[in-house]
């Protein structure tokens, strides 16, 4: 199963980071890969509650993702499902897990985005697909063929 994990140290206490991650006001401030604006942010941060975010990238393309809060424990852990609207970019549902740990300078945030290729796994009808994808990713991440 292909997944992605990132760790960041943030100069803010876990409660503040947690609220920035889960509330609509917070999400509107940071969601999206570049300085493009968040156009819509809705969030109901409780188990079973939903969120929806639409953002515009600097290249002017708009994207919307939404999902459900699967687990929520302030201020240390939140698990979300994720799906792109329209499904053209990635038709499956993936999972985001964020854990927050208090450290002397503030918070250590660990984000894991997993189940990135469920749809392809189902549709490929071939065993070992995700395993080979992982190997492939490791192989080509080294810059081969670049």
């Amino acid at each position, binding site marked *: 199963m*292909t997944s*992605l994990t*990132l760790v*960041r*140290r*943030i*100069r*803010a*206490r876990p409660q*503040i*980071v947690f*609220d*920035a*991650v889960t509330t609509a006001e*917070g999400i509107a*401030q*940071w*969601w*999206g*890969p*570049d300085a493009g604006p968040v156009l819509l942010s809705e969030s109901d941060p409780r188990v079973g509650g939903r969120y929806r975010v639409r953002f515009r990238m600097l290249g002017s393309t708009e994207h919307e993702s939404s999902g459900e809060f699967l687990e929520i424990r302030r201020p240390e852990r939140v698990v979300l499902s994720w799906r792109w609207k329209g499904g*053209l*970019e990635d038709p499956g549902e993936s999972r985001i897990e964020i854990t927050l740990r208090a450290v002397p300078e*503030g*918070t250590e*945030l660990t*984000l894991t*985005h997993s189940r*990135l290729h469920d749809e*392809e796994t189902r549709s*490929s009808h*071939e065993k*070992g*697909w995700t395993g*080979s*994808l992982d190997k*492939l*990713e490791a192989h*080509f*991440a080294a810059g*081969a*063929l*670049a």
Partner: protein
Amino acid sequence: MRIILSHVVNYQERLTRTFAALVDPTRRAILARLERKDGVSISELAEPFAIKLPAVMKHLDVLDGAGLVTRSKSGRTVTVRLRSQPMREAVAWLRRYEHFWSGSLDRLAAYAASQETQARNRGR
């Protein structure tokens, strides 16, 4: 808009073909060989594999269909070369989420730090 949509669909089809081609270990081994030495004849390419030439030809058809290799004929020799564009697209696809989260978390860190400063200034 129709043009953009069709571009997206073609992109998806290309990705599907690329990943389908890469599922097979023999095909990955063929690509790895071409990566070390590009522009080899089919018989030379087939030599280290414990399969017959027609089977190698079939694998090359799949790789060719995905745009991962090109074949050119000169006299009686067919030369196989690597094409890296579909692979670059596949890797870029895999890295989209990394790009998304890396940028988002940078912004989150800056925002939360400013919220922390504000909270402290309010004496909390």
